[in-house]
C-alpha cells in the first residue's frame, strides 16, 4: 500500500457541536432519500390505487383461492392456431397478420372471482388468447363476451367491486350499494342495458368475444389506426344453459370431439369521433370492419396442468405493429394482472394439494 498520509493535508479536527451538526446533515440527506422512495412506492399514501390493492379487493370479495388467478379463475386451456388471410396486413406490420398460421394457446373462462362458481353464475364468458409469432414476439388478448365494459377507469372498476363486496354478516352484497354505485356512474348504462338481456350461454363456442378496450394498429409506414377486435364464432346457437352447476367444460370437450372450433378475428376500425379511452362506450354507427383470419381451437385441457395455466394474459403484451391505446384500463389490467400472477405463481404447489371439487362452497 502506498502511504496516503503524506499527500493528504489533514484538516483541523471538528468540535463536538460541529460534528453533531454534520452528522445530522447526513441523517437528513438519508432521510430525504428514503422518504422520496417511500413516497414513490406508495407507502406514504394508503389511498393510492396500486396493483396490489386492486388484487386485494378481489381477494376480499372472493376469498383467496391459492394458485388460481385472482379474477376469472374458473377456466379451461385450449390450443390451436390462427390462420391469417392477410387482409389486415396493410393495417398492421405485426407478423400475425401476414398470411399464414400462428400458434395459439388460449383460455376460456368465467368472469367470476371464484374457481368453484357455477357456470351460470354470470351471463358472460371470457376468452384469453396468446399468439406466438415466428419472430418470438407475442400478442396476448383477454376478451369478454360483453360488448362494453361497465366503467371506463380503474378507480371506478375498483369502486364497483367494493359496491358488490359481500357483507361479512350475511355473505351477500349490501343491496343498497350497487344501485348507489350505478346512480353515481351513468357511464355503466350501456353495460347494464346489455346485461339485462344477456343469458348464460350453454357453450363457450357460440359466444362472441370482444377486446372491449381499444388498441392501435401500426402499419409498415408507421400509419396508426385505432381498433377494437372481436372473435366471432362460426358455431351458432342460443340454446339456454342447462340446469347444472358445471356444463361448459363438458360441452367444449364434446364440441372439440366433433371437430375444431372456429372464430373469425374481426377488427373494427375506429371512426374519427370514436372514444379510444373509454371502454364503457360503444362505437356507435357504421364502422369499417376487417376479417383478419380464423382462430381455430383444436384441443382443450384442464387448466391446473394445461399449458395456459402459467400464462399471464396481460393485454399489453403486444407484438410490434399493435400498441395499446390511451384507454386507462389497459395499464391497470396489465399492472393488476402482474400482481395476481406474482401471487398465484408463489402458490402453485398448493394447487395439487387441494383437489378442486372438495372445496365447493
Amino acid at each position, binding site marked *: 500500500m502506498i502511504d496516503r498520509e503524506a499527500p493528504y*493535508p489533514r484538516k483541523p479536527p471538528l468540535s463536538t457541536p460541529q460534528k453533531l451538526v454534520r452528522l445530522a446533515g447526513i441523517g437528513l440527506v438519508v432521510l430525504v432519500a428514503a422518504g422520496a422512495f417511500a413516497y414513490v412506492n406508495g407507502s406514504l399514501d394508503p389511498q393510492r390505487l396500486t396493483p396490489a390493492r386492486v388484487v386485494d379487493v378481489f381477494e376480499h370479495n372472493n376469498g383467496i383461492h391459492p394458485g388460481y388467478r385472482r379474477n376469472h379463475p374458473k377456466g379451461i386451456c385450449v390450443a390451436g392456431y390462427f390462420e391469417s388471410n392477410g387482409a389486415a396486413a396493410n393495417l398492421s406490420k405485426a407478423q400475425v397478420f401476414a398470411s399464414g398460421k400462428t400458434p395459439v394457446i388460449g383460455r376460456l373462462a368465467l368472469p367470476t372471482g371464484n374457481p368453484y362458481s357455477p357456470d351460470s353464475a354470470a351471463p358472460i364468458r371470457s376468452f384469453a388468447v396468446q399468439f406466438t409469432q415466428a419472430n418470438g414476439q407475442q400478442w396476448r388478448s383477454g376478451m369478454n363476451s360483453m360488448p362494453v365494459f361497465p366503467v371506463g377507469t380503474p378507480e371506478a372498476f375498483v369502486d364497483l367491486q367494493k359496491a358488490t363486496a359481500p357483507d361479512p354478516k350475511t355473505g351477500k352484497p349490501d343491496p343498497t350499494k350497487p344501485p348507489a354505485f350505478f346512480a353515481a356512474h351513468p357511464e355503466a348504462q350501456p353495460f347494464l342495458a346489455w346485461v339485462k338481456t344477456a343469458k348464460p350461454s350453454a357453450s363457450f363456442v357460440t359466444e362472441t368475444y370482444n377486446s372491449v378496450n381499444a388498441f392501435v394498429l401500426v402499419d409498415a409506414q408507421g400509419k396508426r389506426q385505432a381498433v377494437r377486435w372481436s372473435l366471432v364464432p362460426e358455431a351458432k346457437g342460443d340454446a339456454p344453459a342447462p340446469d347444472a352447476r358445471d356444463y361448459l367444460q363438458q360441452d367444449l370437450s364434446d364440441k372439440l370431439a366433433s371437430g375444431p372450433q372456429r372464430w373469425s378475428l374481426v377488427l373494427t376500425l375506429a371512426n374519427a369521433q370514436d372514444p379510444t379511452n373509454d371502454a364503457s362506450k360503444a362505437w356507435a354507427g357504421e364502422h369499417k370492419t376487417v376479417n383478419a383470419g380464423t382462430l381455430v381451437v383444436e384441443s382443450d385441457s384442464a387448466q391446473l396442468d394445461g399449458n395456459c395455466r402459467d400464462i399471464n394474459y396481460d393485454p399489453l403484451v403486444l407484438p410490434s405493429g399493435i400498441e395499446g391505446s390511451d384507454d386507462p384500463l389497459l395499464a391497470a389490467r396489465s399492472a393488476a394482472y402482474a400482481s395476481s400472477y406474482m401471487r398465484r405463481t408463489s402458490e402453485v404447489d398448493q394447487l395439487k394439494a387441494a383437489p378442486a371439487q372438495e372445496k365447493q362452497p
Partner: protein
Amino acid sequence: MSTPTTHFSPLARALHWLMALMVIAMLFIGAGMVASVSERHEWLLNLHKPLGIAILALVVVRLIVRFTTHTPALPADLPAVQVLAAKLSHYLLYALMLAMPLIGWAMISAAGDPVMLSSSVRLPSIVAAHAETFAFLRKAHRYLAYLFFLTILAHLAAALFHGWVRRDEVLDSMLRGKTRG
C-alpha cells in the same frame, strides 16, 4: 504529489456517477411502477427494461475498469471495521448491479413472456418458462432492490461521513481528479 495514487481514474469516476444516476433512477422507476395502475405503470416499465440492460452492459465495462485501473487505498488511519464495511458494501453494490438486471431478465423469461426492450427489440429468454422459478426470481428482484437501495443509502451516508466529518480524501477521490486546497 502524483494524483493517480489518491483518485479514481477519470473513466472510473465517469462510470460511477453515470451508473449512480441510472441505478437510483432504476430503483425509483421500479418502485413507482409496481405501485401504479395508471399509464405511468406502462411507460415506467418500458423505461425499466432497456435501462436495466444498459446497466448490465455498463457494469461489465466498469468491472473491467476497476480491475485495470488504480483504485485509491482507503486512509491508513481508517478503523478496521470501517475498512471492512467499505469493502463488503462495495462488493455488494457490484454484485447487485450485476445480479439485478440478470434476475429481471431471467424473471421475464421464466414467466414465459417475450423479453421486449422496445416494441420490436426482443432479447432471447435466458431461463425456461416455469411458474415457481418466476415466483422465486420475482421475489428476489423485489427484496434485492430494497437491499440495493439500503446499501446505496449506507454508501451515501459513508461518503458524506468521509467528506463532512472525517474530512479525509475518500469523497474527493471520487468527486474530482485533483486534491483540494
